[in-house]
């Protein structure tokens, strides 16, 4: 047996194992392919188109569907946007809307609802949570119509009918306090997401651990503070992150409720502006290019936020090892 033979043999086995590994990778990619294709067609390609549109001045007045014939204007749309006297107001509207809705409803109220419904009778808690899913599974149009009908001016609105019955003055609720309604209406939907995540996290805490805390001398409130909340830290951070991003891009309910009004941009948020500019401008003058610039900025803000969240909350570490199961 020559020396080259002894060398070649393990290397052939090695190559074979490489081939096997490659084959198994191919299987994995094969399974990922359908989802990958969908993401490319319905997400990456549109993002690329929007990016391109944002550097053109495409509008209904100079419409063309030929990408090559669209007029390239560089960063002019972004320049216009930064000088837009209302962009600043809309920017702060958006921050206000996201922060207030997120902190009061999507996180705090969701936490309160899950803690309450896990501390009462199990089936009663379940029914209560099931009811709170309704806003999310109701079509937004129907859901907003219900709110509008409740809050409408006298003599149509249900609340104002009660006011009249009690001899109280009537109010035009939505136009006097539009922000309250924008936040409450969105918040009621937002609660259900955190509620489901928090509830399942709380219920997955081992019963022994909860009993141990009571026996160790905690009240139920102390148990929430020292045991339950630390143990659901990861779902808590997840909900904060996920809901920030989803509130940033949500606009359907606002569009249906106030359409950014009353008055000039009173409750207009960034994503709604992108929609208004690009697709629903006055006199049918849709500014696709300009609207795309708004959309691109929103995506960039979202990406930056997501990266910051991942860094600050150290997601990789949180996902790395199960926290409660490590008993």
């Amino acid at each position: 047996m020559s020396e080259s033979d002894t060398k070649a043999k393990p290397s052939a086995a090695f190559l074979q194992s490489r081939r096997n590994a490659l084959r198994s990778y191919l299987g994995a990619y094969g399974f990922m392919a359908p989802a990958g294709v969908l993401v490319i067609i319905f997400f990456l390609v549109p993002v690329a188109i929007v990016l391109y549109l944002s550097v053109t001045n495409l509008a209904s007045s100079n419409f063309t569907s030929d990408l090559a014939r669209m007029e390239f204007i560089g960063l002019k749309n972004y320049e216009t946007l930064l000088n837009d006297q209302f962009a600043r107001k809309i920017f702060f509207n958006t921050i206000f809307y996201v922060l207030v809705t997120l902190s009061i409803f999507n996180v705090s109220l969701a936490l309160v609802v899950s803690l309450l419904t896990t501390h009462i009778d199990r089936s009663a808690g379940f029914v209560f949570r099931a009811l709170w899913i309704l806003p999310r599974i109701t079509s937004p149009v129907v859901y907003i119509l219900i709110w509008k009908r409740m809050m409408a001016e006298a003599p149509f609105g249900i609340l104002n009918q009660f006011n009249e019955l009690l001899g109280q003055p009537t109010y035009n609720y939505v136009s006097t306090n539009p922000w309250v309604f924008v936040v409450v209406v969105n918040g009621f939907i937002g609660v259900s997401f955190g509620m489901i995540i928090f509830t399942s996290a709380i219920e997955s805490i081992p019963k022994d651990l909860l009993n141990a805390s009571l026996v160790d001398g905690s009240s139920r409130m102390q148990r929430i503070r020292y045991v339950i909340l630390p143990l659901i830290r990861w779902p808590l951070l997840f909900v904060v992150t996920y809901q920030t991003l989803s509130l940033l891009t949500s606009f359907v309910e606002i569009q249906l409720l106030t359409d950014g009004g009353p008055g000039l941009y009173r409750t207009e948020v960034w994503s709604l502006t992108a929609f208004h500019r690009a697709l629903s401008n006055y006199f049918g003058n849709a500014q696709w290019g300009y609207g795309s610039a708004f959309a691109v900025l929103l995506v960039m803000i979202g990406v930056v936020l997501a990266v910051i969240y991942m860094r600050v909350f150290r997601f990789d570490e949180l996902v790395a090892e199960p926290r409660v199961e490590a008993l």
Partner: protein
Amino acid sequence: MEIRIDNLTKKFGDVVGVEDLTLHIDDGEFVAFLGPSGCGKTTTLLTLAGIYKPTDGLIRFGERVVNTVQPKDRNIGMVFQSYALYPHMTIFQNIAYPLKLKKTPKNVQNERVRQVANVMGIGELLDRRPGQLSGGQQQRVALGRALVKEPDVLLFDEPLSNLDARLRLTMRGEIKHLQKNLGITSIYVTHDQLEAMTMADRIAVMNRGRLQAFDAPDELYDRPKTLFVAGFVGNPPMNFLNVSVSQSNGHFLAEAETIQLPLGADRGEPPARHGGAVVMGIRPEDIQIAADGDVTGEIFVVEPLGREDLIDARVGEHSFILLADTEKQHRAGESVSLKFDMTQAQFFDPQTERSLLWHH
């Protein structure tokens, strides 16, 4: 702390956890709740802890009725089967948690935690997290956490079930030693009769939510008051045989088909007076393989246990478990003569399942 449980009933909807339990535990006593799973022993323990509220009956700690007292106001320590350590806290924080809730000053907390940790032999682990400890170490931490607040009552919920056999033996001794030293009234729930027998001053045997017996270990072993207790306590379990006991000329005889066993008046008189069919119980160690045996049978299976052989011998339809010297090297299929020590035989009423020999 003396504990008096009177007519305790706990129901979950229609499901009965414990029914009409009456049990008085002396100050400093170590009591085991023994029974198969679902017998209500853990339900009783959690009711004593205040996690469950009794449906009916009274629980007194000393003179105080604690039925509706919150767990935190009962001054109890509890050790769980799963250890139930808080995974997000260090070992120090775990042990200090009951003190922190009592608002004990920081320096006192520090001192007490270290003291308890040293007693439990986990002094060098205080900075670790529960996930980094072995099962045995975690159990010590759990015990330390239960002891640190100097409880009036210690509750154990199958604390050794998750440990390996060798460690279980060590911890058994340590817990018993600790309990005797500290003199804390303790209740120990287990389904392992060996644990109950070796550790407890008295054992409460439970089955299907009801108390079967409450006695010292050797009392339960030698004078079981019910068929269930007789069968549950002791390993390998007692042999049972349906017999009829008759008397002629002052001699008593237990008979089952071909088996005829003479017995003395003290054991024979009550079942003979009861008349008809009774259940006879005889422990494996009370059956010997001897030349001058009472009945002849055949060895069905030999299970070597090391120190002795566990033998399943068949006499006709009947099977008897007995223990034999390994030196004898019995083989399956061998014909043997069995000698019954009838001075140790037990007799039960087949209907009421109560002992015909021992009454309450």
